[in-house]
């Protein structure tokens, strides 16, 4: 195969991140520390860029994952749904070092879904009558009030996959899927970090979770930390 969908597999994280520049908007998959593109997150740190806008559900936790970007001072703005116990974000939000836009989680996911699907904005019932409505257009449709939310595009999306083929067809594992597929659709450049890289034709077409049309670069990263955020068990 030739053309733009050929040779997506790159040799290193550094190669994959070559187009990264100061001031870019970066969409990162993951929910808490689950489904994080760990090697790409580290790779961005090593590049020494700054003034990034980060779009991610949590922006890390426990000093891990995207919290490392906060530590390094490379983020100027975070768009997320939840901060929780992420002290790295709390302190930088309080000091004004990082601007934080908090968005309801479903609205956050839908903003990227819309961006990837060519829909510039959408009406949603979520947030009506709350501070989320402030400054937004509202409309009553069939007797219920909705507010207008805008699509959210990124320059680069960083995605963690369990399995990818060379075309970029992807499968995820369990709840590590989370925001990864919508992030992949909404950026000009989508980079996938996969645990397993397989030959084209290995993944049955009916089993593809994210079609390769949305993927531009693939890096094979067999080893991951896969950090536990809260390890809970029951007695045998």
């Amino acid at each position, binding site marked *: 195969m030739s053309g733009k969908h050929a040779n997506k597999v790159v040799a290193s994280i550094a190669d994959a991140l070559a187009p990264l520049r100061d001031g870019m908007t970066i969409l990162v998959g993951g929910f808490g520390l689950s489904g994080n593109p760990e090697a790409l997150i580290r790779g961005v740190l090593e590049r020494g860029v700054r003034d990034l806008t980060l779009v991610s559900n949590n922006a890390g936790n426990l000093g891990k994952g995207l919290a490392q970007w906060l530590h390094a001072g490379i983020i100027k703005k975070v768009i997320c749904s939840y901060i929780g116990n992420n002290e790295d974000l*709390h302190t930088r*939000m309080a000091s004004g070092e990082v601007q934080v836009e908090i968005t309801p989680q479903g609205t956050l996911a839908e903003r990227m879904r819309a961006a990837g699907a060519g829909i510039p904005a959408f009406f949603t019932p979520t947030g009506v009558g709350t501070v989320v409505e402030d400054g937004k257009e509202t409309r009553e449709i069939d007797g219920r009030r909705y507010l207008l939310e805008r699509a959210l595009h990124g320059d680069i999306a960083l995605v963690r996959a369990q399995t990818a083929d060379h075309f970029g067809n992807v499968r995820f594992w369990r709840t590590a899927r989370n925001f990864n597929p919508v992030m992949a659709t909404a950026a000009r450049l989508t980079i996938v970090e996969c645990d397993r890289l397989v030959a084209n034709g290995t993944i049955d077409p009916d089993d593809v979770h994210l079609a390769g049309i949305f993927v531009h670069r693939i890096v094979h990263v067999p080893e991951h930390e896969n950090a536990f955020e809260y390890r*809970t068990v029951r007695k045998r």
Partner: protein
Amino acid sequence: MPYSTEDMARRAAREIPAGSIVNLGIGLPTQVADYLPANHAWLHSENGLLGMGPFPYEGEEDPNLINAGKQTVTVLPAGSTFDSATSFAMIRGGHVDLAILGAMQVSASGDLANWAVPGGKVMGIGGAMDLASGCRRVIVLMQHTTKKGEPKLVARCDYPLTATRVVSLVITELGVFEPTGEVFRIVELADGDGLKFDKLFVTSG
């Protein structure tokens, strides 16, 4: 005697019809699962899981199989996993029958405040607003007063709102209450006739 947290969770479990799709919020609502009969309901977790099972046995934890509180969980037979946009389509689209959520304040008209304390640390919204406005029924499970003893069942919420006119039932350690518009209707009292009404009125400002 007021309800214990176990009593409260057990009472909330009784509100779940067989075969329903239920989302249990973080904290006390998560414990409601412990009082559901096997195969009674389908638990939905907004990070992308339907058919959530109990915590795993030690040694079987998977950091990439978690609930919305980021705790390790399991998935039951016929369970499914999906992306966040699909998960919130289920919620916003009215496919989730019931949400049982914690709260900071509930008003007599069913307004819910459960994501921020004025002047407090902003923890974020997470899935709270989508769940509150999208699920077909919302039940609140919470303590009757704040740690300082301030009422949490109020005429009007003065905490930042999560959604308006969505709560259909409130379960606290003092009983079960239904927002009816102007007032809360007492559905049942934990202490029956023994409960001092002056306390109930004082704590439901």
